[in-house]
């Protein structure tokens, strides 16, 4: 059976296509999101490359140089109550805070996408049971849950990351569940089934890629949320334990020196705000850029 013969007059070569990458172009138009992305890039680079570029170690204690204010001497951003260099500490703290944020996001995404996809695809009893569970967990105030859990276990970078992830996956599950439930009714999902595709193929190769837009947005916002949660828990003393610095426990430390050495609180506070706002801006920009309804004609 020869199938290579052409049965129809070919469609004529079409005119030039509109430029691709419209999502990137839309994103670039979003000023705040571009700014957010730039700030995030600087924060990441600063935290990871920065410590190699400055002459101070974040744990080096210089008793002679306690409470040096910023821009007053060799320490550009001043020193803390033990004479440790603030810039170095902020950089190392950034490593921890950002790493916790990203890792917690990744874990929460994996859990959220899996739960959401299973619930959305299978629906029925399994689906509603899963989603009711998600709703129940969501009803719990996050901070409360986090503090309760943190009080029970030994705080550390790994455990805090896992805890944050455990409180952040439900939103993702909800978003993904809704998307998958709508998508699985679409003809292209039926088409895949008609080709003999397995459930896993249909969910992860056909459906989930169509939900990337909301997933990416949720991921970005989750990083912001995780950074904030980490700071919050550490600030309350249940999170990352000194001497390992994180923006949150630096803030906690700074409380008693609020009037005498305000920069100890202002600097980490500023960075937390900056990071969280930047991720939120980035999320907004991605939401607009990835929304197919914004497709310009």
């Amino acid at each position, binding site marked *: 059976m020869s199938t290579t013969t052409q049965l129809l*007059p070919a*469609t*004529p070569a*079409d*005119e030039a296509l*509109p430029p691709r990458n419209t999502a990137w172009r839309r994103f670039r138009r979003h000023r705040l999101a571009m700014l957010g992305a730039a700030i995030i890039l600087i924060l990441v680079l600063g935290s990871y490359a920065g410590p190699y570029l400055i002459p101070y170690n974040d744990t080096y204690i210089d008793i002679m140089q306690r409470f040096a204010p910023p821009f007053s001497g060799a320490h550009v951003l001043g020193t803390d109550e033990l004479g440790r260099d603030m810039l170095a500490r902020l950089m190392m703290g950034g490593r921890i805070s950002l790493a916790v944020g990203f890792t917690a996001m990744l874990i929460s995404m994996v859990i959220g996408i899996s739960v959401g996809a299973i619930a959305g695809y299978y629906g029925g009893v399994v689906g509603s049971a899963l989603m009711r569970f998600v709703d129940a967990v969501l009803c719990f105030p996050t901070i409360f849950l986090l503090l309760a859990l943190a009080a029970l276990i030994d705080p550390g970078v790994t455990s805090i990351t896992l805890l944050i992830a455990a409180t952040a996956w439900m939103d993702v599950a909800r978003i993904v569940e809704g998307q998958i439930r709508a998508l699985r009714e679409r003809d292209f999902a039926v088409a895949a089934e008609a080709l003999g595709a397995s459930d896993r193929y249909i969910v992860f190769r056909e459906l989930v890629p169509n939900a990337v837009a909301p997933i990416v947005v949720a991921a970005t916002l989750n990083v912001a949320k995780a950074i904030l949660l980490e700071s919050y828990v550490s600030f309350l003393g249940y999170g990352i334990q000194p001497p390992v610095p994180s923006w949150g426990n630096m803030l906690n430390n700074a409380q008693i020196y609020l009037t005498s050495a305000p920069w100890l609180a202002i600097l980490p506070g500023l960075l937390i705000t900056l990071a969280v706002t930047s991720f939120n801006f980035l999320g907004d920009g991605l939401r607009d850029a990835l929304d197919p309804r914004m497709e*310009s*004609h």
Partner: protein
Amino acid sequence: MEAGSGDILLEVEKLAIRFRTHGGESAAVSDVSFCLKRGETLAMVGESGSGKSVTSLALMRLLPKAPLCTVSGSVRLRGKDGGMLDVLSLPESRMRAVRGDNVSMVFQEPMTSLNPVQTIGAQITETIRLHRPMGRRAADEEAVRLLDLVGIPAARQRLTAYPHQLSGGMRQRAMIAMALSCEPSVLIADEPTTALDVTIQAQILDLLRRLQEQTGMAVIFITHNLGVVAEIADRVMVMYAGRVVEQADVVPLFRQPLMPYTQGLLRSVPRLDLAGRRTGALSAIRGNVPDPRRPPPGCAFHPRCDFFVGGRCDVQAPALDVTSDDRQVRCLRWSEIAA
């Protein structure tokens, strides 16, 4: 169809519509001219995106406002006093009265143009009272009369029904009733039967024909179904890529289409009356409908045309020629082709 000039209800000349979009300015419709006589049905046919809906919306002045969309040319509509109204320059307040009173419209998907949370009765009486000084009671009676007229059984009970409680065909009837409430002299029907089944479509076509006989209104009927055109039209206007490419009375158009696109279109539809006698392949028009935002140069149909001549058709944009028997055709080679 002999008629004095007083019988002309609508005159459209050199209508052009441009949209401003992200990609820049684009011409959706250009150089559209036609006129419509009392009691006449003009069918507007063409592929998706050829500008049928946009043209009809321009007649109703329902397109987006100035910077987004610019309309030029002239649209003249006979008012109830017998004088001609210049639709494109009427103030908005006057235009609101003209809509419904002189010209009204029925859309393809009745569900999207009916208010889902208001009863059919409320929507019809509201339209009636907007245009005619009438008490609630009287308007209700009038609504019942209209629903009766369009063949909705148990009309009085239906007044309290919501749109979703009616079938597609009934909703379309309700839309027609609403459009007729002020006895407009021109009714524009934009694919009123496309979403309906053939048996329901037959009911609606029959209804429109009867109403037209009774009231003498003129109808502009937009469709892409040539069967429907043959069924109801007096005159046919074929659109391609935003331009009128052929205009003629229905019988001559079907008997001897002049423009190659019309010819191809008529050849490519299978005929039910020849059904079951396998007649081989249909003669399809090759290629694709052009992107209306980037029409090909010269004659917009040239990439798909069998009579295409390089250096002519792809260079010179053909004008709308008027033939000796008062047909209009836009093709550089129509007289050679016809010979």
